């Protein structure tokens, strides 16, 4: 296997841990609620998935429990921001710190335990495509879930009534109310669903790709997911691009070194952020004008 292939394979695996939470955050932000606690929801998902995965012996059960754990922290964020009208940024940070503390305490007994990870599933036929096959179609199931979710979120967002209502909630909740909808319910659902996806992203780390638990193991990638949504201008395909670019650049930094190529280490460390930012700013320039209006209001209030 050459280095380019390895960078792309590792990039898809690692990028998935950012893609799925970012899609979840996109759903929440489209409803007008930003969740900086995505990092915490990922941590909760990672630990819960690892816990359930080791207890039941099934990483699949782990993924489901991870989604539920992420969702429960999302529900807390929804309650604070949507029902209690708390500042969204402050509430998100509270959720992050809470999850960090809770998972650090309860995670102690899982450090250096082994889990049977999600198996690698080669998609019949597609994985045999020369070169691209192993890169795109020889991963654990959550990678394929990521592909499906991008398409699903796009279709629902732009081609269904539910998506229209969701977007309307993020733009003008009063219009939704006037047409008989329930913006509050929609926001709670969107934030909770988004946090469930963040939990699945955490599970991709703990039982899908790196296969262990450690305190604070998400190392800030939840914040990367939130940033990707922002720079992707709330568009699913751009989120896919941003998450994978980040993953590939992260893997590239290792691959370059593993082949003994001398490149400035600090440049390599910055590479994922530089590449993702540059690409998304170039491709998704219309970003600021596309921000859901409710979101812009929420963020301006916070300053």
């Amino acid at each position, binding site marked *: 296997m050459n280095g380019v292939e390895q960078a792309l394979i590792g990039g898809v695996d*690692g990028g998935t841990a950012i893609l799925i939470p970012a899609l979840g955050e996109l759903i929440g932000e489209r409803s007008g609620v930003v969740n900086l606690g995505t990092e915490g929801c990922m941590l909760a998902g990672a630990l819960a998935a690892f816990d359930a995965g080791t207890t039941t012996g099934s990483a699949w059960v782990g993924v489901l429990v991870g989604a539920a754990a992420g969702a429960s922290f999302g529900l807390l964020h929804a309650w604070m921001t949507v029902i209690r009208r708390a500042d969204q940024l402050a509430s998100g940070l509270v959720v992050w710190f809470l999850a*960090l503390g809770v998972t650090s305490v309860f995670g102690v*007994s899982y450090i250096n335990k082994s889990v049977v990870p999600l198996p690698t599933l080669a998609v019949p036929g597609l994985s045999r495509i020369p070169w691209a096959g192993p890169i795109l179609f020889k991963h654990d199931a959550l990678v394929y879930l990521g592909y499906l979710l991008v398409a699903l979120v796009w279709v629902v967002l732009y081609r269904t009534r539910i998506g229209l209502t969701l977007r309307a909630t993020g733009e003008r909740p009063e219009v939704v109310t006037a047409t008989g909808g329930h913006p509050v319910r929609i926001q709670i659902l969107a934030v909770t669903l988004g946090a469930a996806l963040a939990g699945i992203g955490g599970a991709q780390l703990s039982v899908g790709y790196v296969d*262990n638990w450690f305190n604070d193991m998400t*190392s800030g990638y939840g914040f990367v997911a939130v940033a990707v949504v922002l720079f992707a201008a709330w568009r699913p395909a751009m989120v896919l691009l941003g998450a994978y670019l980040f993953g590939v650049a992260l893997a590239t930094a290792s691959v370059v*070194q*593993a082949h003994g190529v*001398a490149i400035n*280490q600090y440049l390599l*460390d910055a590479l994922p952020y530089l590449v993702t930012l540059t690409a998304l700013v170039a491709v998704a320039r219309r970003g600021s004008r596309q921000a859901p209006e409710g979101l812009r209001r929420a963020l301006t209030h916070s300053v």
Partner: protein
Amino acid sequence: MTHLRPGGRRRLLAAASGALALLAGGTTLSACSSSSTSGAASAGASTPAITVGFIMVGSRSDEGYNQAVYDGSQAVAKKDPSVKVLTADNIPENNSVVQTMQSMVNAGAKLIFASSYGYFSYAEAFAKANPNVVVVHQGGFLTGTFPPNFGTYWGQAFEPVSLGGMAAGAATVSGKLGFVYAFPISQSIANIDAFELGAQQMNPAATTYLVNTSSWCDPLKQKEAASALLSQGVDVLTQHQDCQATVIEAAKAANAKVVGYHYDAEALDPAGWLTGSAWDWSSVYENIVGTVQSGKFTGSVYNANWVGSFATGDNPLTLAPFGSSVSSDTQTKILAAEALLKEPGHSVFAGPVTCQDGTVLYAAGVIPTYDQINSIKCLVKGVVGTLPQS
């Protein structure tokens, strides 16, 4: 090693946990082995009762660097009931450590073990401000005059690391070894070089490929690092990270071999585990406590940069048990090398040692001192990769 943790997010985390520690107040200190007055009486006049504090940067149950400190502190408490042991873990490398030291002194502590690299300046300043308390720092190195109540202690970590390198050199089929490290600090450089030199003893053609993660524990980066190394032909992995499970799991999934660091993790991957380095601080801690108890700290070996080694029989970093795949012939050779290091006049870095670029680091016959090894700036020949240049 738990060391410098740069980055804004770390500082934010540190600030938050500092705040939490404040909220928790005195409860951050947990005491064990109570020293009742009757206990003190039975201890005799030669070892008066003493209260000792241990401060850790990470969780005391991380099955790594910090747990080794905690285990050492408990060994002290168990050995001598007249010693009251206070412990505080998850204390960030900022002003919180000063607050923690102060609370320990308020609780009667006369000796404090500051066990994380980044505590150094706080520990030294605290010692100067509190002449009645002895402060010792784990892993630091003071150049200059020591305050009468301050010292550092460490071990020649590269010694067992080179023995692990021997196991790796014997096990590799491809001749390519992989080393995942965090930051180019002197201890990591010495470990990388020692690992390669050890490997060369068993397989002169063995090369060590380096990947840097710029983090003491970032599982995603570690996984990418391990995958990158494995995919290009490396078949033995080792590391200098705080958390080692990711690299071990990656080796396990690829049927590669692994050499551990910090603690014995054979249980994670019994088939792939070769050996590793594991901390055992108990005798060092006991000796320091005993020295302070007898009132002879000032001027003692611990009132300086104390470094344990195989040669002096007190290296706190020991060789971990061998895995089942290590042949008895290899084990014999490694144990023989260990025995040799225990004799005077031998060193992992005994010349000739050559840098990557061909310059001679140590000429034939030269036995470098610990200070010299601790300031090596070059990677030895056989290591593939470069150190980050600022």
